[in-house]
């Protein structure tokens, strides 16, 4: 999974990918929780 440059360090784009994935998961998860607590999730979606 890890593409390495000559000195063994991870190239920046992949570091950003991992970083963004963590924050994106946090953002999506907390947004869903917020909508759920506000009662804004349509019942039809909950199956």
């Amino acid at each position, binding site marked *: *999974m890890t593409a390495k440059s000559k000195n063994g360090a991870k190239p920046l784009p992949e570091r950003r990918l991992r970083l963004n994935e963590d*924050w994106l*998961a*946090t953002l*999506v998860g*907390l947004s869903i929780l917020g909508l759920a*607590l506000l009662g804004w999730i349509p019942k039809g979606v909950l199956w």
Partner: protein
Amino acid sequence: MARPVIEPGETEALVSRGETSAAWSTAGLALVLGLGFATRFLEKNVPTWLYWSWVKSVEFPVYAVALGLVGSGVIGVLGVRNKVAPAFRTEFFIKTGLVLLGASVHLNVIARAGFRGVMQALLLVSAVFFFTWWLGGKLKVRDKLRALLAASVSICGVSAAIAAAGAVRATKEQIAYTATLVILFALPSIFVLPWLAHALQLTEPVAGAWIGGNIDTTAAVAAAGAIVGEQALQIAAIVKASQNVLMGLVAVALTLYFTLRVEDADSNVPRSSAKQTVSALWERFPKFVVGFLIASAIATLCLSTGGANSGIAAANTFRSYFLILAFVSIGLEFQLPLLLAEGWRPIVVFGSAAIFNLVIALVIASILFSNFQV
């Protein structure tokens, strides 16, 4: 264009991510969603269809991985694996699921479980984690894989393995390997532990604490606890939730250990300042654990002010959706040759750790919960 160097055992899928079209990615996503829908359908209907059989207790991870494996075979035969693989975002799906899991890990559980629950979780997680780590070292399992094995068997299965994977930068194959072992061991334990608890004539609180401390997946803990009885179910859920809270602490500890010990030992370049060390720690820390803790704090606050139960239930449903997509992706990414390359040692480590967990959890539960009433 020169292709980047790939380490042995690393997947081509990520490297080829930039070389596939949006249409193939959309097809891959449709495949994941379709199999996810089929998983949910089976999870909902099989218990009704086969209410008389043990199959009714099979949980969604099993359906999801099985359907994912079938899908993996199909895309392998069709020769489109690398084209659709960018849509198999196992880590994103499971991390989002774990942030939502925070909503059902209430901080006041610690208060309810009191001294016993916290002590059991701390003693058990520490003992099993370090036993697995030690045994993995003795059998020369690679550091990253043994961190995943130790976290998963000692805390909460695949969730903890993903948290640990972020901290130690494990490969997708190592995550898939650990997830496969967790599922293989969790399935029989749902039935074997309640049977053993009955055979050993354990009281319900002791049986519940034993089950909560042993079975890795939270849903399987609830299933096994329910087979024993209501008291056992409550204690099992509390012990499991206390262990889940420790997931964040273990992620921090592994981040520290791998940054300061393992990789410093491998590196010829010493870190010149504390600032660099802190920066390295933060860079590798699994950030979604922050989301997990925030979700837990929000849910605790909402419930303590009386209400929002239906909101938490809706969030739990979405947690299931994301975990289903994650397990489907694990199945789709499964490639037997990569797993066989790890050899028999990790299986021996995981199996031995599971047996050690059984024994030590029984001892601790018997001491702490022998006179306990819900």
